[in-house]
């Protein structure tokens, strides 16, 4: 169990003529036994960060410590990290079994124990049927699981997993995520995974570092990212379907608070629905952006503001309903099959605690549902 500290780390490529800062002043602490995801779209700096931790890339400035020791001068092999990298290929002349057990054998573990651990790992990742085959004769998904098995089977200071499940068959993904999470927690591994897939990050990680343009946007648990996104970027990046965003003009008058939206529609609340700091905030702003999670939108027959259904898509376990609301599109999610037809008028209720308030210019979050009331 080891702590990883990333302290003010910057990575600049091609520092000569055309410098590109891939990672900018990154601060990140990963606690012993913690699983952390670096999440972002391509070019956000997540892979550069992982490669610096592994030792494949140098750090332009800043420090990186594993278990309190600065590792900058240590080559990858001496950092005691186990890796499953995309394109970090399997050894072609070795069977799947030999690939998975390779590091254990090199580390002097006895043959019977290796056999047992490889068998257990292969069973967990559903590759027990292909252990005696060679990498060239197995599918992409199986290769990826072999690479993952090879990393997870080791007892290392850190486990680094780069897009570990991107190739996996969708039907297997949720089951394997559950098993892997259970395994990592049981072993007390400290792990960092890099992914562009928020479902994977949410499923596996204790905390998620959201990166964009080389900068850390937010570092928090999946629950906090959902309930208290730090800015519009994280708010709309995480969550499926994405958060609804609508511009509003607040109007605090007497006992009522009105949030004026487009087309003459206003959300009307009692003053008591909001805390004093939020009321002060609303009074001080001429306009702001409202963020509303689709799951927090309530659709009903009466009360609330009218909206016209434009789409009703049933996906088996949930319905996605888009409405034309106040000159914008408002998406609602229901966990049942909903009878609303295209063209129907429904009534939208947005509870005060469903609202996230953002600064219209900077996108920075001002207040969140749970603290509004």
């Amino acid at each position: 169990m080891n702590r990883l500290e990333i302290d003010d780390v910057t990575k600049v490529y091609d520092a000569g003529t055309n410098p590109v800062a891939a990672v900018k002043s990154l601060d990140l602490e990963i606690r012993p036994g913690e699983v952390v995801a670096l999440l972002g779209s391509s070019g956000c700096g997540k892979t550069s960060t992982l490669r610096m931790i592994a030792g494949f890339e140098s750090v332009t400035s800043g420090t990186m410590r594993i278990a309190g020791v600065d590792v900058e001068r240590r080559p990858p092999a001496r950092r005691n990290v186990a890796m499953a990298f995309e394109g970090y290929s399997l050894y072609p002349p070795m069977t799947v079994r030999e690939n998975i057990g390779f590091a254990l054998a090199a580390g002097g573990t006895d043959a019977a124990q290796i056999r047992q651990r490889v068998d257990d790992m292969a069973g967990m990742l559903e590759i027990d049927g292909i252990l005696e085959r060679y990498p060239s004769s197995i599918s992409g998904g199986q290769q990826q699981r072999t690479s993952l098995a090879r990393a997870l089977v080791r007892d290392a200071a850190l486990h680094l997993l780069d897009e570990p499940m991107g190739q996996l068959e969708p039907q297997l993904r949720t089951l394997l995520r559950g098993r892997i999470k259970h395994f990592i927690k049981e072993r007390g591994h400290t792990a960092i995974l890099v992914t562009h897939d928020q479902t994977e990050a949410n499923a596996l990680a204790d905390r998620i570092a959201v990166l964009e343009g080389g900068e850390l946007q937010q570092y928090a648990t999946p629950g906090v990212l959902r309930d208290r996104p730090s800015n519009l970027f994280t708010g709309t990046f995480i969550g499926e379907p994405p958060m609804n965003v609508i511009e509003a003009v607040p109007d605090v008058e007497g006992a009522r608070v009105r949030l004026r939206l487009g087309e003459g529609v206003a959300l009307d609340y009692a003053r008591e629905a909001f805390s004093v700091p939020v009321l002060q905030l609303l009074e001080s702003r001429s306009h702001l952006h409202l963020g509303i999670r689709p799951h927090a939108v309530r659709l009903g027959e009466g009360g609330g503001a009218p909206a016209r259904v434009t789409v009703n898509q049933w996906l088996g376990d949930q319905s996605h309903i888009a409405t034309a609301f106040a000159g914008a599109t408002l998406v609602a999610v229901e966990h049942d099959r909903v009878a609303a037809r295209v063209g129907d008028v429904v009534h939208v209720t947005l509870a005060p605690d469903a609202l996230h308030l953002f600064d219209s210019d900077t996108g920075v979050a001002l207040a969140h549902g749970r603290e509004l009331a």
Partner: protein
Amino acid sequence: MLELDRITKRYGRDTVLDDVSLDVEAGRTLVLFGPSGSGKTVLLRLIAGVVVPDAGYVFVGGEDMHGVAPEMRGIGMAFQNFALFPHLSAYDNIATPLHAKGNGVTAVQRRESVERVARLLKIDHVLGQRPGELSNGQKQRTSLARALVAEPRLLLLDDPLRNVDAKLRFEMRLELPRLLREQGTTVVYVTQDYKEAMALGDRIAVLDAGRVDQVGTPEQVYLRPANRRIATLFGDPAINLLDAQPAIDAEGVHVRLSDQRLALDPGLAHAVGRTCTLGVRPEAIGFGAATDRSAIRVSVEAETPLNEKIVDLVKTLRGREILVSRPAHEPGPAGTDAHLVVTTADALLFDRASGERIVPAADGAVPPTRAEAAA
């Protein structure tokens, strides 16, 4: 509008399409769904006329397409890799199909058509830019605009949302059906994403190794899958598959799971004695109290958030793994020891050897289709 009649296509010894018959009514969308290698793309190319079938017929608007060149079929296409001309502006890319010799389209009509479709797809402000200057989403819309501009009687879309990010994919999933409806276009849409298939398809054809396993509305495919494989392809997390042996007693047909009796559809009496697989969706399983005598004791192995749902991986005392899913705001298991309550109203029963669904004697009516609901 489109009819495929007993199409077979072989490459060497490989039969990539095996006796495929499908039809699409005018103005409707048919989704071809299946994993890579199932034959979806070959089928699309065959409709377009760039691949010739070894046997069978393609009819478009009642007309046999045998010997009709691709450009004479009145078909529009868009692809997952956009396939835009890099040296042409978005405007000129979209206008290409209108430049065919002798089509009588005037320059003014051309401009009107391009601008109309660009407005529809919200790219009217980037028409002067080249593909290199467009975002992925704009490229994808440009490619779609080019496919739509000539108002084809049939539109073929080959996984057009595959290479765009999750946010845009969601937006397009909402917008596309309206757009296609407004155009009145008949569409064949290829995807590997079951949510896209359910959201966009009036009907879905599920392909496996060159054969059509099932054609039906999203409701039919999800609630009455033809076989076990289809049941696992639709739904996230995937349906739980549990070995089961249906039996019958005074109270009716049932299976046993960890010594608990789970009642099945009374119409499944003919399944008694057969070796089966029971399919239960993760949404149909919940956590109950220890005092509930019908509850199944399990240990909670891992809890993984999935969008606004929470998925629990649990294990029965006999080591069976089960996935349980609930909306994030609903309470979960109290600790690592928990009790499951299984709702079997929508449970599916499959023959274990063949994988075929065992159909109850009176198979409950499938809820109305999207088309019926819209009528």
